[in-house]
C-alpha cells in the first residue's frame, strides 16, 4: 500500500466513524425519552381501594360489583383471605397498592389489610 492510498484509507475510516456516530446520535435522538410520562395512576388506585373499604363499611357488595371496576381486591382479616371478584385468586398481583385499617369486629377491633391491583 502506497503512502497516498494509506492516507486515503485513514480518511475513509474517519468518515465512516463520523457517519456511524451521526447515525447513532440520530437514532438516540429519535428514540430518546427524557423520563417516563408522569402518571396519576397510583393516586387513583389508592383512592379506589379506600373507596371500596368505605363502601364495604356502609353496605354489602358482591363479587359482580367489584368486577365492574376492572380491579382485583384482596381482603385479609382474622386470618382469612377473600378475593373480589373470585377469579382474582389466580391473578398475578402487578404493581399492587395496599392499605390497612382497624375495623370493628364483634365486641373488639381487628386489622383489615386490603390490596388492589389491575389484573
Amino acid at each position: 500500500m502506497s503512502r497516498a492510498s494509506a492516507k486515503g484509507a485513514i480518511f475513509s475510516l474517519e468518515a465512516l466513524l463520523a457517519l456511524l456516530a451521526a447515525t447513532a446520535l440520530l437514532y438516540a435522538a429519535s428514540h430518546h425519552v427524557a423520563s417516563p410520562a408522569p402518571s396519576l395512576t397510583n393516586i387513583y388506585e389508592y383512592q379506589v381501594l379506600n373507596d371500596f373499604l368505605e363502601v364495604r363499611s356502609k353496605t354489602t357488595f358482591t363479587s359482580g360489583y367489584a368486577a365492574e371496576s376492572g380491579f382485583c381486591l384482596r381482603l385479609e382479616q382474622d386470618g382469612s383471605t377473600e378475593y373480589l371478584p373470585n377469579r382474582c385468586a389466580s391473578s398475578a398481583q402487578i404493581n399492587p397498592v395496599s392499605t390497612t385499617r382497624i375495623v370493628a369486629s364483634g365486641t373488639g377491633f381487628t386489622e383489615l389489610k386490603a390490596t388492589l391491583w389491575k389484573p
Partner: protein
Amino acid sequence: MNSSRPSQHRRGQALLLDSVLAALLALTLLVAGMHAVSSAAESAKQSQETISEEAKAISLADWLIKEGAIFTTGSPYGPISHTHEIDEEKLNSLDLHALAERIGTNDVCAEFLRTNQPQSCSGRACIRRPAVLHSPMEAGYLVTCIG
C-alpha cells in the same frame, strides 16, 4: 487551470465532492435533529395536557365524593357529612357548567351508576369511584368526566 497539473485538478474535484457530501449530511442531521426536538416537545406538551385533565378529573371526583354530592344531616354540633354516600338529588342539582368554568375546562359531567347501568357521561378524562347511593344504600360508581 492551464498551468495546473492533471493530478491537482482531480484532487480539487474530489475535495469538492467531499464537501458537498459533508454539507448534505450536515443538512440531513440538522433537519432530523430539529424534527426530533420538535416531536419531543410536542409529545411532552401532549403528556402535560393529559396529566392536567386527569388531575382535574381526580380532584373534582374527590370533591364530589367527600363534599359536593354527598348526603348530610344536621346535629346539635353542626352538619354531619356522610362521605361516599351520594345524594342523587344534590348531584343532579349541581351547576356543572359553572364548575367547569371555575376549573378552567370546557365541559364536566358526573353521574351515579347503579350495578350494570351503562355509562352515559363521557369525556377526555374520566374517573370512576366506588360509592353508595344514600337512598336505598346501594353500592355503585360515581363517574366524573372532563373535556
